[in-house]
């Protein structure tokens, strides 16, 4: 299933407390439950005035619908084309 990176502009995002985040997470979970299509919230990162989320869904439409229902902003949605990390080095083309 495609993975999406969602950029959400939320003023003062970095100041959200754990309790705030818990509330948001609960809302998000309820929304995921309500969609009626395969959908996985993978992880989110808070940075500055933004929250970056990684979601798995069949299409961007579902990601948008998730945002609407949660009342979350979703300023930019991009399909994650690939993922890599330190371990990727072991897949060296030279080998």
């Amino acid at each position, binding site marked *: 299933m495609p993975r999406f990176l969602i950029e959400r502009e939320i003023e003062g995002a970095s100041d959200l407390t754990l309790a705030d985040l818990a509330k948001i997470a609960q809302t998000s979970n309820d929304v995921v*439950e309500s969609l*009626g*299509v395969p959908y996985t919230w993978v992880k989110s990162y808070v940075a500055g005035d933004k929250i970056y989320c990684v979601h798995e869904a069949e299409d961007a*439409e*579902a990601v948008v619908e998730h*945002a*609407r*229902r949660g009342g979350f902003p*979703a300023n930019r949605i991009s399909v994650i084309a690939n993922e890599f990390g330190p371990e990727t080095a072991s897949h060296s083309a030279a080998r």
Partner: protein
Amino acid sequence: MSALVEFGVEFGAVTGVAISDLGARPDRSYAGDVHILERDRELAALRAAVAAARAGQGGGVAVTGDAGTGKSTLVESACADASGASDRQLRVLRGVCDPLQTPRPLGPFRDIAGAAGLGPLLRDDDTLLADVYEQLYEALRAEPTVLVVEDLHWIDAASVDVLRFLARRVDSMPIALLVTYRDHEIGPRHSARPLLGDFARIEGLSSLHLDPLSVEGVKALVDGTSLDPQRVHELTGGNPFFVTEVAKDPDRPLPASVRDAVLARTADVAVEDFEVLQLVATAPDRLDDRTLPALGVDLPTLRRLDGTGLLGRTRGGLVFRHELARQAVESTIPPGGVARLHARLLTALEMIEPREPAVLTHHAVAARDSTRAARYARDAAAEAIRAGSHSEAVAFFRIALDHVHEATTPGERADLLQRLSFEQYMTSQLADAIDNVRATFPLWQRAENPAGLAAAHDTAAIFEYYNARRVHAEAHADRAAGIADRSGADLAFGVARSTRGLLAYMRSEVDLALRCSTDAARIADEHEFAPLAIKAEFVRTLVELAGGSVEARARLSDQVETARAEGFDELASTGYSQMSSLDVEQRRFRAAEHVLDESLPFTVERDIPICRHWQTSVRSRLRFNQGRWNAALEDADHVLDEDGMPLATVWPNLVRALVALRRGSGPVLVHLDAAWALARQIDEPLRTLPVLAALAEQMWMTGVADPRVTDDAVRELDRLAGSPGTEWGVGELAAWLLRLGLITEPPDAAALAEPYRAAFAGRHADAAAWWRQAGEPFAEAMTLGDAPDPDLRTRAVELLDSLGAVATADRQRVALRRDGIAQVPTRPRAQTRANPAGLTNRQLDVAKLVARGFTNAEIATRLYISIRTADHHVSAVLTKLGLPNRRAVVVRADELGLS
């Protein structure tokens, strides 16, 4: 991707993030599907308004027509031009009024404020409405904007006020104000009515009515199908929405109604999905996206429903693309199912923040959930009051009262009724307000709360007085004092006495007024209750001022400013009302002008209707006395057309009657009779004497004997001459009765104000000079006319002619000829070019600024108009004043009463 879930332009709207073209309707609209037929002229007008806004010139268009005539489509099309194509995009802000049973206060402006990045409009209880207006004004004028407000037939009163505020300033903002409404749904009492008047009257604003399509238009829409245009036209009456729906399914049998056409599109929808359509139809504003999880509506369902083409997404929710479609689906809900659907929505809506009490009330009422209906209606009323939306506050309090539990205590019920009655007073529904205060009496008794009962009687006294029922008012005030006194409710006693004192002052009952204010002052002192102390002080000072004390005027002015500085808005406003009233009565016109310039905007800003009506009526009298009759009539019409408080309608009626009488045009008696009926009810010398004088003037003009003059006026003059404060009224009435020969001797000199004393002593030239100095040209002319000297009498006729008092001048011409005076000025053939009496209030504002040496650019800024409009006004002012240039206005400002 389906339309219901597509993202793109709309997405910013969903997320609440400002984007450049928020106004563009997010869903794929009819505008995109259909050519706009037979609307070339209308579309051109809207495009012209948009183009003008882009160029910095403000204007507005109201688009009217039946449901389905394509109002929204047309506006959307103009907006699409604004936000698309051009390299310079225009900001488009869009607000919608919803068909809730009682609308959300400031509903459309919440959308607009959000999109303009203003945040919540009413931050807290202390937010002044005037600040909200300013904030919107500043935000809207900051860049060229198309402001769309749709469906005014469902608008709330506060939004009407905001729109009127903007409409008056439209000339000074780069804005295209586009509104839509169904004209036949706005009756004469609808709160949007005054706004529609603005669109008819204000330059730069106009209205467009959309007619149904012709057969040719229908033909174009069904072109390429097997449908017979003539038959479709007959069936649909040329309604574009209906025709479009028919054309979408050309192979089905022709539907009999719009409803059938819409429902045909749902023929293949499964039962469970149809219930979702019904849920959306049950939410007249929108089915909030955030309620979808709680309502169990999943994404596959939305995808299936997308096939019907009936739904769209906007403002963070699901909506029907057209209200007619919503109504069609709503009509399929069986009577037993309505409450259940509303209950589901209510539960889902309660889970999201912030709550919208007006919307919750709507659903709670329809769900027949009394407890929640009462609770949310109270919240909604409080919100409406904060927004200054008093008609909605009335509606919500009514709902609260209809739903409060049987077990509610009498005190709670009385409290709700009292709040309701106050809001009814705020909307000029005095009779209802009084009924509801009276309904609290037995409740306070059952609650064994004498202070509450006394306060209720005090409120009843005030409302009855505004309603011009003085005797009832006095009885309530006395009863309030009695109840409070017996039960030891000191403060309530003091308040009731201060009310009684003010009533006594109004009736020139000096001793009683002073006794009452002494009681009130004592209580205020004991309880250190500042507003009561100020009110008591007011009455004492007013008594002195009415009695002729010059020093009291300065003291009163200080007291009013103190009240205002302390934040006692109503008190300060009452002070202004009485001060301006006495200034006009005692012919301090310049002082009156200053007070009203300051205080009338204050009454608007602080939302105090009785003082606004009263002061507008005082200004009407002021303008009338100054010979500015058009401006006087404007104010008079304002009070009478707005259903002003009966107490405030004496002057407006007199002004209408006397201007018509003197100009020899329009009905006189109907207004005189109304003024007389009021004067009798109110029975106060300062009101009765001028009305009697007007009746006498009418008798003098027509020669028809009137027992109200021959009997009442003669008797009242005799009775009132010499009582405190009546020197002006007695003088004026005596002058007319002398002219009529109904009295032969004037009253004692001591009972008369200065110019009357001089005139009755034969010093007509002195008296006329006094009037000239004071700025009352008609009185000046009549005094000159009373003189034996033919030259003075001739001048009188000329003066009357220049005032436009043609009928009065003619009457004097006849007298001159009868007395054998040779040089009778001929009647001016047409209105001479110069006509100071013809200045409107707006032109007077301009004239005053010209007199102060302001440039047109400065005038434009001050009056929120464009420089071009200021130019027009200044030319009109110069023409009417008969002056060659603005310097002449500056030089003669004093004489023209413009300084």
